[in-house]
């Protein structure tokens, strides 16, 4: 997804303006001219200039007939779009549910679904999922003592 630079520039300017607005709530310190707001404001000002230049360039490109948003070829193939969003969705699911459900069931789900979606044969997928989940759990939780969430399996482990 390649957007026209004018759109990128506009987003950057909005971001900088919002940020500079936030810095006005920062406290000033008596007898100290240079406080926590100075550095972000300098950066914000530079980013606004960059955004302006990007808009200028984008508008020139648009006049020359450039598209507003160009989509990569893979976006026209539903399976590939699915691969992209399945990865993100599984990450989000892990963020939301891993504390309650636990690492092992979530990792099993993530790996299994991705393998099947990517066209791995079901038996290979099952074996690899089980081995990889347990290997990663053993390596990080037992060997490196990372407190991976136990969730539902708390009583078993």
């Amino acid at each position, binding site marked *: 997804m390649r957007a026209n630079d004018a759109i990128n520039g506009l987003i950057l300017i909005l971001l900088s303006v919002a940020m500079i607005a936030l810095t006005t709530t920062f406290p000033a310190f008596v007898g100290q001219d240079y406080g926590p707001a100075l550095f972000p404001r300098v950066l914000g000002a530079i980013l606004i200039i*960059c955004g302006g230049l990007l808009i200028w360039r984008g508008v020139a490109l648009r006049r020359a007939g450039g598209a507003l948003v160009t989509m990569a070829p893979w976006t026209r193939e539903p399976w590939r779009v699915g691969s992209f969003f399945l990865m993100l969705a599984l990450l989000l699911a892990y*963020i939301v549910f891993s504390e309650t459900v636990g690492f092992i069931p979530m990792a099993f789900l993530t790996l299994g679904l991705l393998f099947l979606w990517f066209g791995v044969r079901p038996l290979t997928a099952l074996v690899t999922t089980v081995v990889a989940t347990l290997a990663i759990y053993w390596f990080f939780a037992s060997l490196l003592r990372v407190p991976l969430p136990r969730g539902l399996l708390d009583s078993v482990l």
Partner: protein
Amino acid sequence: MDALLTAFGLVFHFKVIWVIAASAAFGMFVGAMPGLTATMATALLVPVTFFMDPVPALGAIVTATAMAIFAGDIPAALLRIPGTPASAAYTDESYAMAKKGMIDLSLGTNLIFSFMGGLVGVAILILCAPALAEVAINFSSFEYFWLALLGLTCAVFMTSEDPLKGITSLIFGLLINCIGIDPTAGYPRFTFGSVELLQGVSFIPAMIGMFALSELLRGAVSVDQQGAVLVQKIGNIFHGVGGVFRKYWLNFLRGSALGVAIGALPGAGADIAAWISFAVSKRFSKTPEKFGTGHIEGIVDATSANNAALGGAWIPALVFGIPGDSITAIVIGVLYMKGMNPGPTVFLQNPQFIYAVFIIFVLANIFMVPLGWIAIKSAKQILRVPRNLLLPIILMFCMVGAYAMTNSIYGIIVMLTLGVVGWLMEENGFPIAPAILGLVLGEMLEQNFMTSMIKADGSPLGFFERPIAAVLGVITLLIWAMMIWRAITGRRATIAPSEADPAGA
């Protein structure tokens, strides 16, 4: 001398050697797999090294990256796909050699000259770093401010074909770094009441997101496209390499020297070193017309350069805390986590760690020859590992790695957010490396900027009063002036070719 002996004791320890061997194998594999980069190898290693002592932790990173940069040459010759962006410069040349039936000589040259180039890089690192540290010990906030700014300037100037987007990316990285408690007054900025944001955006999960997750997202949409290995028997790879050295020893020296210099410049790493030295080799060759037809000359230059760049990148990282490439950007994060704040004082307080890094660098390059030989011999098996099995497993590693850095879901949230941001940036032509440098150097830049502003009482002249600060300041301003001049006159302010993979070394 005592420190050197201590360093040998620290390195030649069963556990350390074991870690080095394991990370060498890991680096070989990651480097040889197209789509997995040396930077990604480092980002994935950090959560594991987090639980180790400083010496094995640094040893793992040094070894894995050295192996990965070499191993990237293998699929370049066999598949015409570079294993890491650092091999992209001579992929066509290697493949052309392979098609002419000279695959043994091509791979042998890659292995031997990678090893020797790596050694030149280490040698210059060992000679320069302590000497520079002695100079740097007298630096004040003014010098560090200019150094940080010069480093960031180089990052924009070297890495991006589009300086405007490079600067934008850099400022974006600096802004992300503003999140959290500010370094001078201790006021929480842009935290929106979140306790976890008080410590700032966690650096390693951010790196895993921007370098690994964004790469996985790109890989996911082309998971079924696996290159076909050129069917050819690999024989004695060392046969004829001696002749190449006798004929092209000057190319080797020139490539290595260029590699170290480019590696030491902030923001430019092994990939750009390879592109530039390949171009230089062609420019000064007696037979430039042979380039592109499977000619060994350019490969000698470039394959020496990309491994030499690795050592070069450590010079500014260890001495000033300014990373020379995206790999040392991660290393600096690791050094801070281990309580070894990079800078000249580490040479005084913990010289044994510095020497240990040097020793491991030499060891890693020596290990490269036998391990590289094994990797070349088993290349067909390595390249047959299906991507549809590999990508989900790497995704799991990213998740667990990001989690391990904060011991909470927060790490994964940072990784996911910056992974998507990084993917969008690359899609829209914003280079990632300047943003990462901004994220690493932001605190140093702000702290020294604020201290200097307070010391100089807001007067810009104060920034030029000390001689070294003045020189650094003038150089920085000159580079900016040149960039603006080039932008106005409409020429591209770049030396990196546009074909370079944007993912960084």
